[in-house]
């Protein structure tokens, strides 16, 4: 059996909304192995986004433990969490979240800046990642000169460029038409078949069923 790359143990995440405590996640334990293609599914308000933020180390749990690629993130400070995000996690967002003033190539280079990769290697690695997603002819274009599908490919290249353990995608086809969305989904399937651990957060049943494993959330708990 492959090793765990994402392990949540009895994780809770509570928010204070005025005088009420909202239990966004309420005692969740999951274990995702290397190379798995997992969908985290559930209706809105089920805790999907909270779980994605926790897995991506953008947020920390109220209680419980989270291990990412064997590293216990409990008690890590902001800078250490930033390091995990940079090295272990590649984010793909619904709204792409490209930096509008930078070219496609510069967008892909950005995580490498934070990783401290030297200038010459940065460019090589970024070109390689863009080639991998089939966008080598659009490197010098800015996001507003790209179609939705192309933008998402740049975002995927950016997520991949640091060779992260986990590819974490939040509704990656949500802003795309069916055909383009399908192509993006095929790209994820390809990346997974190459051995990459992929976690897809979606409320779309059809999309979720294309993954090899589904984790259903409802009211902050994992459904059996």
């Amino acid at each position: 059996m492959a090793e765990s790359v994402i392990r949540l143990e009895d994780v809770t995440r509570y928010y204070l909304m005025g005088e009420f405590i909202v239990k966004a996640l309420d005692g969740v334990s999951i274990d995702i192995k290397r190379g798995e293609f997992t969908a985290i599914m559930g209706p809105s308000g089920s805790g999907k986004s909270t779980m994605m933020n926790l897995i991506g180390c953008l947020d920390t749990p109220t209680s419980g433990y989270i291990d990412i690629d064997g590293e216990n993130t409990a008690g890590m400070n902001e800078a250490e969490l930033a390091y995990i995000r940079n090295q272990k996690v590649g984010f793909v967002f619904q709204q792409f979240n490209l930096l509008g003033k930078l070219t496609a190539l510069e967008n892909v280079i950005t995580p490498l800046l934070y990783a401290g990769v030297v200038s010459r290697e940065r460019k090589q690695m970024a070109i390689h990642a863009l080639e991998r997603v089939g966008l080598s002819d659009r490197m010098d274009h800015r996001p507003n000169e790209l179609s939705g599908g192309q933008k998402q490919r740049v975002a995927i290249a950016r997520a991949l460029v640091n060779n992260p353990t986990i590819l974490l995608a939040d509704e990656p086809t949500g802003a795309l038409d069916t055909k383009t969305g399908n192509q993006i989904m095929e790209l994820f399937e390809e990346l997974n078949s190459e051995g990459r651990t992929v976690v897809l957060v979606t409320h779309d049943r059809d999309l979720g069923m294309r993954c090899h494993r589904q984790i259903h959330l409802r009211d902050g708990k994992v459904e059996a």
Partner: protein
Amino acid sequence: MLLENIKLAFNAMRGSKMRTALSLLGIIIGVASVVAILTIGESASKSITESIAIGGLDMVSIYPASGQRSTGIFDEAFSDMLKSDVEGIQAVLPQNSSNARIRNGKESMNASVAGVLSTYGSALNLEFSEGEFFSAIDNINRRQVIVLGSSIAEELFPDQVVVGQYVSLFRNQAKSYLVVGVLESKDASLSLSFNNTVFIPYNTYSQRFIRTSGVGSYTVKVADGYDTIAVSDDITEYLDNIVGTDGYSIFSPASLAEMAEQITGTFSSFLALIAAISLLVGGIGIMNIMLVSVAERTKEIGVRKALGASPNVIRGQFLVEALTLTVLGGLLGIALGSLISYAATNMLDWSLHLSYTSFILAMGFSMFVGIFFGWYPAMKASRLDPIEALNYE
């Protein structure tokens, strides 16, 4: 990383040109005024010093008080006494002078007549357009020879060879003084105007005009390698002991120059301080634009954090942006300040002395302003919650 941050800073500036230009203006005006004030101040000080220096910065003049002249120690022997008792003196030149009418027939004008030794000419580095200074023999023999200032020569002998001509002095109608030299025209110094002065031998003057052994004043030439002001202080101390503070007065262009330098220095430092306050106000403008920039780019900050930027990195990015703004403003300000100084000194007919100290000072201060006022916005950016920042629209 630094290079990327600078590039990002320029990207951000391009994105909001008008806003950037307006907040840069604060820094530019601040730096330009600091540079202009210090440069113009230094140029003023230098040109004042230069005009004082015409009288000779290695000269000290001693004027006996009127009561001391006949009774006191101020006679010809005093020269040798002073020279041997105070270190650093090359020569002590006694001098008597008064105002007099000088004539060439019908042409006449007022002049200052000075009775001096033959060494006076070389001690003061006087230059001649015609002839030369009179000799020691002329003095010993009390000859009636005269050296004319350039204005006097022009007035009395327009377009003529002057050496060899005769002039008359005081009420004397006879043209008894033989012109042996004419001085090169020289800018007026604060102590005396050479152009309107005539020189005759010391002994001739004494015999003809005062008939006493008193000396009107002494010109002390300081020896090479000695500080004029220090020697002047030594002379002051020496004379205070002999005749008391009321017995004489002393004057040296060097101490005047020093005083002028101090006054202009204090004055321009004070003005520069006021200008520095305007730089501080410019800094508030920088803080303002940086806060707006952070607020506008909340989403970008969120994305960068998701991609692995640590709080330090985000803070660095915005600090470099603030610094880039102030350095750019500083450079433009130095250019503008130099231009203003050039125009001002040109108009006032001073020579331009660019104050490089002020360049460094203004640049350093504007960088300090950049860090100081950029710190808070940069901290604010670095502390943004990544999830809230990502979801910010």
